[in-house]
Each structure stands twice: as C-alpha cells, then as structure tokens.
C-alpha cells in the first residue's frame, strides 16, 4: 500500500460521524498526493469553523487563524515566500460571511493561491445558524421562520470580479472533487473552489441526497472561458452545475506584478549601499 505523506495520525477528529468534511479531507489529501507536492512546501491556511479544522488533519504546514481571515494570511505567506504552495480553506460562513471583503479583494489581487470553501450552507461549529449560502426558507435555531436573506452566490460574484478560475464540486463525488482540487492547485492564479459538503447534523435540507439531486455535471464541450456564459451558469436554477465554470488563463499574478523574487523573506537582508544611498537623499 502506498502511504500518502499528507496522512496524519490523529487520535480524535473534531467532526461528527458522516460529516461531508471527511470526504473533502480525503479528496484533498489524495489531490496533494497525486500532484506529488512536497509537504515541506505546502501551507494550508484556514479560518475558524468545522471546515477550517481541515489542516489540523493534514501533515503539512498550517496557519489556523481567525474566523473569516484565511485569505489575507494566505496572501502574506505567499508574498513572503512564493516557493510555497498555498491553500486557503474554510467554511462558507468564514469565507463569504465574516471574510466576505477579503474574498472580493483577494480575487482582485490574483495571487497564486487555491481557495477551497467547505460549503455546507450552514454555520456548523456554532450549531446551525444560517450561513450566507443557506437557502431561502431553511429553518434554523436562529432563523425560526426560515432564512430571509437571498443566498450569496459565490460563483456569480467571483465571475463578476473576473476571478481566473472558478469551480464547484460536490463531496458526494470524491473523484471529481479531487480532480477539481488538483486543477485548482495546478492553476497559476487565484482559484476559487466552492465545494458542497453536507452537514449531517445542522442542515437537514441540503443532504448528500439533495446535493446529488440538485446538481449536474457541465458537459464536456462546455467552454469555461466564456465569461457571459459562465455567468449564466452561475445563476442557473434550479440545479447547480458542477465543474470548472469559469477559467481565464494568463492573468498576471500579483506576486509577479510586485516583482517578488524567489528568495524567501527569511533570507532578507538590508544592503548597506542602498541604505547609505537612502540616507544621502536627506542631506
């Protein structure tokens, strides 16, 4: 048996039995393994929430930060050592609720970061309140009469911002999930992968079954480079398309635009000549 170097001995995991997060974790670890990444160069940044616990269970570098703040941390890491592969991973509440502003502006920057969202359409860790992607009418412990807010459409918003790689997967299909994650990581630029992940405890509506019934695969001849078409797909009802919905290769990376070299920041030095020259300007 081939061992996956990203596997970790974990005594107890924080997720409920049957939770979709397990499948996502498996798909992720397989993807990392398939891509033959060196775990010493892989950093997974996450926020807070059930999905955000993922890097606790992956044998790779981890920055498990604050609720909502995975993306700025990920950017800081990438810009300080661009040799690292950086994944930012969190729940729908973390990325689109508390972290919504960073989602917008991370897309505008376009660092080479893979954004993986565990989209269970609910706040899992805090016991089942509505999340930005909760469907209208879903009753929760807080939304007693059902969710009133129009669901946040991450795919449409990402396309509106011209994010260069926008995809959706369903953990119910581990293979596709893994393959999309692989492509997202391989993609040079900011990739957004929204992954349907059932919360078996707090979301009794959007179950494995429901996600299966309410999604379909984009056909092979679908052209993800057409932004208008992608937007149509993004707002399509009632079924959600799965796959790479929008892709635009060649957009320049923020790190390239900034002229960042491959010397990691921990080797940073201050050139004496430059320093002396700088002082000279003030004499």
């Amino acid at each position: 048996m081939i061992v996956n170097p990203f596997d970790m001995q974990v005594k107890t995991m924080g997720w409920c039995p049957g939770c979709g997060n397990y499948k996502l974790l498996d798909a992720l670890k397989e993807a990392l393994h398939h891509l033959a990444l060196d775990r010493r160069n892989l950093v997974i940044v996450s926020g807070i929430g059930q999905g955000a616990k993922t890097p606790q269970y992956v044998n790779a570098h981890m920055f498990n930060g604050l609720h909502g703040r995975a993306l700025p941390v990920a950017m800081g890491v990438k810009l300080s050592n661009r040799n690292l592969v950086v994944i930012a991973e969190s729940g729908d509440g973390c990325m689109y609720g508390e972290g919504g502003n960073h989602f917008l502006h991370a897309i505008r920057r376009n660092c080479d970061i893979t954004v993986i969202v565990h989209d269970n359409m609910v706040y899992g860790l805090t016991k089942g309140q509505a999340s930005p992607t909760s469907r209208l009418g879903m009753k929760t412990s807080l939304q007693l009469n059902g969710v009133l807010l129009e669901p946040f459409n991450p795919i449409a918003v990402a396309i509106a911002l011209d994010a260069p790689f926008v995809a959706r997967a369903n953990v119910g299909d581990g293979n596709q999930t893994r393959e999309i994650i692989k492509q997202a990581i391989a993609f040079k630029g900011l990739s957004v992968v929204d992954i349907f992940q059932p919360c078996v405890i707090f979301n009794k509506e959007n179950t494995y079954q429901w996600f299966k019934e309410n999604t379909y695969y984009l056909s092979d001849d679908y052209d993800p480079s057409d932004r208008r078409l992608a937007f149509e797909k993004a707002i399509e009802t009632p079924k959600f398309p799965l796959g790479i919905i929008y892709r635009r290769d060649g957009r320049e990376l923020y790190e390239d635009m900034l002229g960042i070299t491959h010397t990691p920041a921990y080797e940073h030095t201050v050139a004496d000549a430059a320093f002396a020259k700088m002082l000279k300007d003030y004499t």
Partner: protein
Amino acid sequence: MHHFENDISIVFGGAAGQGVQTIAEALVRVLKRNGYYVFACTEFMSRIRGGSNSTEVRVTARKRGAYVSKIDFLVALNADAIDHLQDRIGETTLVFAEKKHLEGKDISGFIDTPIAEFAEKAGSKIFSNTVAVGIVLGLLGISIDAFSVYLSEQFATKGEDVVAKNITAAKLGYTFGKETAAEKRIEVTIDPVEEQPGELLIDGNTAVGIGTVAAGCSFISSYPMSPGTGLLTYLAHNAEDFNIVVDQAEDEIAAINAALGASYAGARSIVTTSGGGFALMEEGVSLAGVTEVPVVVHLGQRPGPATGLPTRTEQADLNLTLYAGHGEFSRVILAPGTFAQAIELMQRAFHLAEKYQTAVFVLTDQFFLDSIAAVDESDIVRLPLERYIVRTDEKYKRYSLTGDGLSPRGVPGYGDGIVKVDSHEHNESGHLTENFELRRKMVEKRLKRLEYLAEEALMPELFGAAEAKNVVVAWGSNRGVLEEVIDNFQRKDLSGLHFSQLFPLNMAVKKQLEGKHIIVLENNATGQFADLLIREFGVPVSKRILKVTGEPFSVEEVVEVLQEV
C-alpha cells in the same frame, strides 16, 4: 527696534494647497545648510484645499524639538491665516502679509508685503512660496546662496527657466526682507551653534521609515489612515531598493492578518495605522498573541474617539495598545521622542518582536510624524540584524515547552519540519487541545517573556538632577517640550524623565520615582501613562498636566503650569 535673539519662531500660514509645508521644508533645509539648528512642526485641517494651516519653523542656538506658541515672524498667505493664528500673535510679532489680508484687523506688527506681486513679477503667482522663503532669509540676514543652490537642485528636472524664475522670486523676496529689516530695525541674532546641527534633515515619517528599512522589514500591508499613512508611502518609495513587499490592504483587518501570514513565513512585517484602524486590528493582535507570531505595529496617534480630528495630534491610544486584544499575552510598547530614537526603536521593535515572538507597538503621533529636524548621521544607530529563525527537523514542534517560555521558531519551507500555528489553544505541535493542564502551561508560557522584556526594558532618559524632588514624566513626542522646559527652569528641585519604552516598564524605574512628587505630562484627557505608573509601581501621581485640544503642548504653557509647582 525689534530685536530677536537665539530662539526665533517663524510661522507660515495659509490654506491647504498654498504650500505652507513646502515653504517650511525649503526654509529649514536652507537654514540647516547655513549651520543653524532648526525645528519645524505643522498643523493642518482635514481638507485638501482651503481651510487654514500653518507651519512653525524654529531657528535656535541650542538644539530644540518642541512647539512654541509665540510667533516672531508670521508670513500669512491669506486673510484666514491671520484670524486662525490670532491668539498667537503677540505684541512683538511681526506679520508679513499683503495689505488686503489685513482688512478690518488691528495688528501693530503688520508689515505690508507684496508677496503675490513679487511672484508675478518673477513670472507667476505660483512662486509665492519662493518669495516667502526669500523674505525670511532676508530678515534673518542669512546669505541667499544656499537657497539658490537648493532651488537649482529642486527644480532641476523642470528646466532652467523654472529654476531661473524661482531664483528671481527668491531674490525679490530676499531684497524686500533685507530692506524691511533695515528700515524697521529688525535685528536677529543667534549665537553660533556649538556643533554642526546634524547632517540629515528629516521628518518623523522618514525617521520611522528609515528605522523600518534598517530593521530588515520586508513586508507591509496597510490601509491608508492619517497620520499612519506616511510610513506606508515611505516604504512604497523604497520598496524596490530594499525588496519590500508593499500592499495596500482592503481594510485594516486584512492588513494585520497579512502581516501575520508574512511573519509566519519568515518576513519581518509591519502594519501602520491610527487609532481607528488599530481598533479594527485588535482581534489580529490577539492572534499574534496566541500564535506567537512576531509583528510590529506602528500607530500614529490622532485625536479620537472615532474619526475625531483626523489631522491633529494626541496621545490617547496608550491604553488601546496596552490592553489590545482579548485574552492575556505579552506585548511591548515603544514611543520614540526624537528622530534618532525613532530610527533605533523601530529596529529594536523588530528585534524584540522576533526574539520574544510577540507584538510590538510603536506609538507616535501627528505632531511627531509631521515635524522636521536635523539628525546627526553618527546618531543613527544600526542594530545588528539578528534573526531568530531555526532550521527545522522532522521532530520539530512549534510550541515546544522549553522552560523559558520561548520555543525555537521555525518557518515553513526552511528545514524538514512542519510548522503549525494555531489560534486555538494548542499543544506543543500546534494542534488544538482542550487539555486543562496544557492550557495553563501555554498561558504561562505566553506571559513569561514579559519578565525578560521588563529586564531588557529601556530606562527613561533623565533631564536635570536625579535628586530633584519634583519629577516631570513625559513620553513619546513630548520629549522635546520636556527637555526644553526643564532646561529653561534650571531648577535643582525639578527634573524630567522621558519614557521611550512604555511597557513593560523596567522595575529599576520604581526607585527613580519613589518618594518623588510625580507630575505626568501627556497629550490626553485622563492621564493614561500616569495610571500605568500607579498600576505598575503603586506610586502616587501628584499632578497630571493634560491637553486635548488636538494641538501639541507649547513650551510656554508647560512652563506656566510648572511655575506653580
């Protein structure tokens, strides 16, 4: 006969956009080149055009770094400037302005000065600033040569014509100044300065910037906010030369989190902001605390609460930094009092942040950042760039319990180890835990470094006699006023203590304070540093000299208050 000696205060007043700051910058540079001690500070309104701003330029026989309210020469570029500065126009003040700006005012020292006319004679109204500098140089009886050289340098890229016109404008002003001095018997004498006034002429923003570059900072992510923006702009200008990543964040929360990500990956990182922006960063500060990721925060203070007075000065954010973030963890607070100190303290800030894996806050304020003074190159300290990053091996644990509370710090990609940092309470390897005993140990670990930090803490600087019964305590930007006031009094029973490290305090300070009549001078409403002294040392504070108008303390007002002590 108007005689001015050894301590001249020249103020330029005008609307935003009229360039009073540019005038002051030119003047101080020329004065410095002529071998004078100069100090300039500026106050301005929160608007881009219009309003009333002013810059004070002091020319002194001794090195000074404080604001004085007296005005010897006021050059007013519009009528509002005279109204705005009314309270500071005294009997001996000479006011240089066009006649039309005087309308309806009764000012004995008024001197009709056709600034615009001269400027237009030189080619255009835009040369008014140059005229103004020329006038002052004429009044002071200082050769105009250095100014001509300055103008040639300054406008070199704009072509000879512009240079020539500026020089014409300068000369017109100069002649007017000289003639007026002769006519009105204006005499200015300044004793020759003891030593050279310093080679570099910089403002506070530059000082903080130089220190940050010198410290090996390679990452800044910040959101513009006065007066914190200066550092961001400074680093942007030096980004290429020093390989510094400069990112304008979408908000302050992004900024601090990005800085932590960068630091985690091995960068020396900083954020710069003001009180309101810092308030938004507090959760991030707490994250720095629990993850033990070093970070430096530059907080340029301005008067709050909330938007308050965006372009004014205050020292009311000490408590904000002292107690920033939920939960309990270490921190360091520094507050430079001179520009040389700012350059050194910025390096010290990064050094302490990295060595002790903690957040370090550097408090400045608008007054400090927008002041201009000369710094000796020999006073510019460069601390060795000591990094405390270890190459990890496979057994590496980020939070190993070492006994001294400090775990060797690895970064991702350097060595074979895995570096996990966690905002949850965690075990040694950085994984979340709910073990009660581990929790207790980790809390202690995170606080223990405060002991080392207190031992290493900078002692305050003493002015006057150590034995003096009355001691005036000040911090940060009030060093200049403290030094000058103590100097002025020359009283055996009055000394000054200036703190450039506010937290943790060195325990040896207690001895310096015990049994003394402690007077604390600070630019806030409640006396935040006074409270800290009480809390830390249990010493009583006899008097608090406070000010909250948005202006810095003037030498005169502090002298007046201390007269009664």
